[in-house]
């Protein structure tokens, strides 16, 4: 059985990038070719395992109103509940805030069927990169093709940012969410701060 989401006073939580929030805010570059970096902390992330065509897959799909069926696909909405394709039988459900209800609904839906629901919320934090230069900055270290033809809004893939394995998700034309493991978050954020440097106005 899956563990329940972390309990405790919310105001005592420290996010993986809390110590960099000020630096991230200060790195913002204004204007149409600008760039903004912020942490989207404490989202709910649930790992699902279910073989396509299995009972578990059907039940998950009912709760989530469909599961992505091929590489790069996502279902749902970035600011509500979204499901990312990780592998043919593996998915990551991302919901904003702490969504205990969703975990319970998925566990309940799975029941005794062969599959898995695991709370992975603390595994990764999210860095959101937005602005006209967001794609340009990412292309310094992401080997995947980020042209909208290959990587349109709603697409999410596993790739690397510099040396760091990440999930990269385009949520809007010039907005990317980078889901990075908490222990790599500091490195990834500093990598982005460095990448953002050239877009800031000269002083």
């Amino acid at each position, binding site marked *: 059985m899956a563990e329940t989401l972390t309990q405790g006073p919310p105001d005592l939580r420290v996010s993986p990038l809390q110590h960099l929030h000020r630096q991230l805010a200060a790195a913002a570059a204004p204007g149409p070719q600008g760039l903004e970096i912020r942490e989207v902390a404490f989202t709910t992330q649930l790992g699902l395992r279910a073989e396509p065509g299995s009972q578990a897959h059907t039940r998950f799909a009912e709760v989530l109103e469909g599961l992505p069926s091929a590489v790069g696909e996502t279902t749902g909405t970035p600011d509500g509940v979204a499901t990312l394709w990780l*592998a043919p039988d593996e998915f990551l459900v991302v919901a904003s805030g702490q969504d205990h209800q969703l975990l319970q609904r998925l566990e309940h839906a799975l029941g005794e069927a062969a599959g898995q629901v695991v709370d992975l919320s603390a595994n990764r934090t999210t860095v959101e990169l937005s602005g006209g230069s967001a794609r340009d900055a990412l292309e310094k270290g992401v080997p995947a093709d980020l042209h909208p033809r290959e990587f349109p809004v709603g697409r999410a*893939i*596993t790739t690397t940012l510099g040396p760091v*394995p990440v999930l990269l998700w385009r949520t809007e034309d010039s907005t990317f969410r980078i889901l990075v493991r908490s222990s790599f978050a500091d490195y990834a954020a500093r990598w982005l701060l460095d990448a953002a440097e050239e877009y800031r106005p000269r002083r």
Partner: protein
Amino acid sequence: MMLIPCPHCGPRNETEFQYGGQAYVAYPEDPYALTDEQWARYLFYRENPKGPFAERWVHSAGCRKWFNAVRDTRTYEFLSTEAIQGAAS
């Protein structure tokens, strides 16, 4: 940099993959019946052809699935890949 076609994810950089050696090496039906020499042959002896070679690869930085591929050892060209059926493919 090679582009390796993962059967699930499409072409990806070779840095996302790991090599798993020769494919279709069957585990002995009764390992206890084997002599030490036969066991060593199963464990350590592999083909080393010049040309097409059936290999296992894993897309470790992507979908994390193992798959079989035929690669030409002279040109490094991937001639075909196939998902492994039943292994949570």
